[in-house]
């Protein structure tokens, strides 16, 4: 099903979510952070989107954006794109680990490198950098590391 058709179906069935359609080469559906879990559950159970392909965090000037790419194993085709916005101070988005278990490490990576917190995640620890590291390196305003060497 194309994203336009899916968007029309969703706005007809679930008007309370107030979804928005974003144009582009890969059209996307913008959903509010508080409605994400409800929409994700609907997409998995009724829509058949049982495979969460990718979760990405993007750092824009005025906001953080978390982009979800979801696919259906049965009706194969291009993924459906969901976008969620989060504010720059204390960005927080609900976690979809309970819906797709494969989101576990991908959300930990977004937390580690971008600093977007996922509420409800069972084990939100750093995954690529070490525990005790301060800062979120993939942000645009990351200052840079400071090291000490044995032989300089």
């Amino acid at each position: 099903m194309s994203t336009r058709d899916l968007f029309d179906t969703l706005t007809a069935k679930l008007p309370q979510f107030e979804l928005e359609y974003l144009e582009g080469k890969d059209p996307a559906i913008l959903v509010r952070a508080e409605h994400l879990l409800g929409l994700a559950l609907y997409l998995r159970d009724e829509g058949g989107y049982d495979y969460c392909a990718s979760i990405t965090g993007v750092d824009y000037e005025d906001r953080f954006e978390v982009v979800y790419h979801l696919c259906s194993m049965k009706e194969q085709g291009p993924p459906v794109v969901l976008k969620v916005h989060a504010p720059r101070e204390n960005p927080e988005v609900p976690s979809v680990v309970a819906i797709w278990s494969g989101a576990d490490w991908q959300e930990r990576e977004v937390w580690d490198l971008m600093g977007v917190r996922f509420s409800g995640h069972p084990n939100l620890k750093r995954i690529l950098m070490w525990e005790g590291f301060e800062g979120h390196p993939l942000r645009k305003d990351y200052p840079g590391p400071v090291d000490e060497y044995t032989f300089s």
Partner: protein
Amino acid sequence: MTQQDMVPPELQRNVLITPVDWIYNLGRAGSVWPTMFGLACCAFEMIVTLTSRYDLARFGMEFMRASPRQTELMIISGTVTKKMAPQVVRLYDQMPEPKYVLAMGACAISGGPFKDGYNVVPGIDKYLPVDVYVPGCPPRPESLLDGVFKLHQKMRNETIRTSPWYRKGVERELPVPEYGPQGLVLPKGEKSA
């Protein structure tokens, strides 16, 4: 003129050391065992060097031992990241002497293409003393063989008289870096050289 007269007096006491050196170094260079320690892409070219086409085994490096206690050569093949650097130095400290380090590939020499990374150590020679550098990204197996020959040559030219392994009072345990809040830090009390 006897042989004794042909050798100048100041070198006469070396005449006994030289054949001992020669046999000792021949034994060491003929059977160097590397640590099985592949970090990244260069590790794969190192594995290929051990296979039948390039065959590192004919030069004495038959096994790659997993345990550092049984090896002499550490081939740092691949990028050393800050998360991995303490482990690398700890493994080096665990190797028995005489020990050597061969930095294989651009990443081990200077950080390589990833030098600008926030998690990349710009060259393992910031934490370990390196004997041979083999450039390339990745170096061809023939380049690695050439590096190994240079190491053998270096081993053959060493003499027991001046080798650091038999000196007393030389601090040889390298400080192991620790994870700090913004990068790696040396343990308290250690200063950089």
